[in-house]
């Protein structure tokens, strides 16, 4: 246990140092500081990062950190809902495919997920806008909420803000915000869902071939019970170990989705900054998103290791009881 914690902390330290060096290289190149004392510049840079001071944005003349916090919440809300959708759909579909192995259900789920993982997100998003939003006009095509609703930002999460609002149209605003979520969430959740289906199915395949699952089936227990109590529980370490790739997939495809749907989040912000060569914003993005990714990655690995330990402990207890 202690060894794992120390290993993960070391990994965290190493990754942060590499991240700092890479972003420092970017900082030097972007600000033309190559001819000055590198070590002194690095100390100044470190000091600025530790105080979370990334200077001012040249587009809006506001502090970059403040803008980041504002835009990040919008992105986080979209990612969270998309992850919820993709985890529920992906887990159930993956379990179905693993349970009906080598039958038509498995083949159908596998082939549909291969098909969905091959579609570029920006293309399917465009298709959705042109059909669902423009041709038949069921859902709005851009933004977080209709401009006619005046909502005071309290938490930054639009779904919570609309409900907390005092005005008489708060429920209407909430429903409006929900319809704005439909298309972005669908196009964002598609790719992670296929990835989760693949991971869950492959992990469950190997677990379902074990003898104890066969014993459980021969006892006449229902397949849902077996999947939840025995299958998923034993497949959890390998599923959690591969979860990092799903998160990174979501966090990168959200940039594209936001640009298509004009969502006021990190993705539109950073692309606008790159077009205007706003180096402070790009530097802040690289440092902050990089740190979030590094911490998430190491946290997920830590949880996967912990789950292996706990599973082994459980097995050892069972053995000692017998």
């Amino acid at each position: 246990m202690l060894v794992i914690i120390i290993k993960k902390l070391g990994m965290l330290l190493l990754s942060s140092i590499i991240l700092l060096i890479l972003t420092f290289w970017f900082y030097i190149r972007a600000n033309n500081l190559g001819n000055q004392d590198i070590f002194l510049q690095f100390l100044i840079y470190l000091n600025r990062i530790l105080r979370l001071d990334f200077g001012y944005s040249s587009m809006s003349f506001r502090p970059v950190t403040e803008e980041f916090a504002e835009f990040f919440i919008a992105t986080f809300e979209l990612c969270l809902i998309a992850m919820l959708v993709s985890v529920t759909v992906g887990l159930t579909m993956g379990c179905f495919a693993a349970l009906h192995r080598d039958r038509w259900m498995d083949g159908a789920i596998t082939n549909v997920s291969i098909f969905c993982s091959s579609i570029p997100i920006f293309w399917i998003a465009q298709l959705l806008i042109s059909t669902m939003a423009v041709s038949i006009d069921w859902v709005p095509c851009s933004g977080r909420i209709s401009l006619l609703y005046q909502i005071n930002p309290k938490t930054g999460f639009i779904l919570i803000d609309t409900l907390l609002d005092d005005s008489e149209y708060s429920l209407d605003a909430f429903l409006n915000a929900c319809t704005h979520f439909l298309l972005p969430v669908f196009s964002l959740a598609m790719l992670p869902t296929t990835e989760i289906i693949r991971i869950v199915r492959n992990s469950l395949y190997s677990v379902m071939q074990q003898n104890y699952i066969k014993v459980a089936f021969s006892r006449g227990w229902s397949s849902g019970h077996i999947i939840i109590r025995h299958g998923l529980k034993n497949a959890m370490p390998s599923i959690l170990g591969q979860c990092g790739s799903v998160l990174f997939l979501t966090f990168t495809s959200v940039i594209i989705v936001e640009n298509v749907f004009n969502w006021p989040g990190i993705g539109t912000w950073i692309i606008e900054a790159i077009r205007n060569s706003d180096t402070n914003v790009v530097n802040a993005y690289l440092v902050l998103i990089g740190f979030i990714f590094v911490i998430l990655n190491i946290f997920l690995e830590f949880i996967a290791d912990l789950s292996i330990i706990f599973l082994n402990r459980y097995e050892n207890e069972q053995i000692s009881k017998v």
Partner: protein
Amino acid sequence: MKLGKLNKFRGLDFFRILRRDWMAWYALWFLILYLMVIIISINFFNLNPYDQQTMDFFRPPHLSFSFSKGFSKFIMGTDDLGRDVYARLVYGARNTFLYALYAAVISSLVGAFIGFLSAISKSKILHTVRILISSVRSYTPIIIAFAIITILGPSLKNATVAITVSLIPRFTAICYEITSEELRKEYIKAVMLDGAGTFTMFRLSLFPNIRDVLIIQFTKHFSMAILDLAALGFLGLSAVNPEPELGTMIAENMDMLYSGNYWIIAFPGIAIITFVIAINILSDGIRNALHKDNS
């Protein structure tokens, strides 16, 4: 463990088993046909992706064939500047797929080299290099592209470099994991006890057994590189305007969709989807074929 004599006809066997999986077999032929169309169109037809026909804006797609005149002039119509969509599509597909192939090949070669060496040799330096590389595993191509492109400016080469750099850590980690897992098995120890050197062991025993995984991972990385390159092009971080590239073509003409000129962005999207689907199905079929072959 496989013996040399039994291994002799494995290639033919592989194709026989692949043929039983009709989807993978058709995907293989589809890919061959697709590449033939690109190569023949570029080399034997007089196509110019930059040429502007000032009289022919927004020509809808029109396919006709007569022996005296040949194919109709604009099979897939023209775009808002009067450029032939088919010519741009063919050259764009060549650019996208070729540069994605470069990224996949270079990243897998470098990744495999570091992964194999650090797993087989017990050298501390290589181990450190591998750990350093794996600690940047969380950087996705788009984020690396942000840093590179803000400094160097958008171009197809910079986008390819970004994708290559971001794919190396994944391939290294996969190669290292497979190799160290195989090295623990007994047949490797038996070969080493028989007096085989490291290179002989690698060539005759280790590599044939991990070849399947490498092929599958390579195809997976190739399809990932295509989608990433197209996504970077869509965000305006890849090829600059007149240069044809599939993602850039879609991004430039996004507003044309609402005026009813669907063909300018429909065809590039279909081109990406069909190619990537064919690669994914083929990779799935190869995995199944190798699996059946082994058992």
